[in-house]
């Protein structure tokens, strides 16, 4: 069943997407599925393993299940310090 998901993009992902946030309808079961779907759409090609994801402001695994109304934060490879 299609879910309504709010996606927030940061740094490089925001530049690729051209927006900081969008609401989408998706059939993606997991955060990883959603990432793949959005990469296709926005022409991004960062390997999943270098990126991180948070769901509703908590760090999550790419295998985490998505539910209707979730806010998914997509973090490109971090570089603090």
């Amino acid at each position, binding site marked *: 069943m299609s879910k309504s998901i709010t996606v927030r993009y940061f*740094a490089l992902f925001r530049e690729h997407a051209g927006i900081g946030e969008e609401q989408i309808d998706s059939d993606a079961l997991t955060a990883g599925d959603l990432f793949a779907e959005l990469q296709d759409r926005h022409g991004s090609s960062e390997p999943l393993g*270098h990126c991180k994801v*948070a769901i509703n402001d908590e*760090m999550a695994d790419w295998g985490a299940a998505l539910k209707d109304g979730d806010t998914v934060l997509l973090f*490109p490879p*971090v570089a*603090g*310090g």
Partner: protein
Amino acid sequence: MQIGAARIDPDALRRELFDHAAGAYVSFEGWIRNRNEGHDVLRLEYEAYDLIAVKEGEKVIAEAREKYALLQAHCVHRTGLLELGECAVWVGVSSAHRDEAFQACRYIIDQVKVRLPVWKKEHYVDGHSGWVNCERCAAYG
């Protein structure tokens, strides 16, 4: 853990770590360098997702406290545009003896660099710019 655009004042931060039980204090300052991977860097731009960066940073500091016998520990990371020579990140710890302080300081900065949602964009002298670790992902990790 603090994240913000305000200039880092190492002396003021250091004073907050004073403790009569402390025999050692170790700090780390990360500065903006003029060269990275063959490029001449003009300035850096840091972006963070504050809410999770603070939460994750607190977790790192709590882990350091658990692993090492610390008295005080603190970390500050800047966001926004930073010029050459500015301090981008500061870590300070105090403990009874130096071994714990050295190890804990190292642990905190190493973890902060790889776990916090913080990104830096390098602006080069030649006018180009790039997100570190992204476009050059092959060199990452």
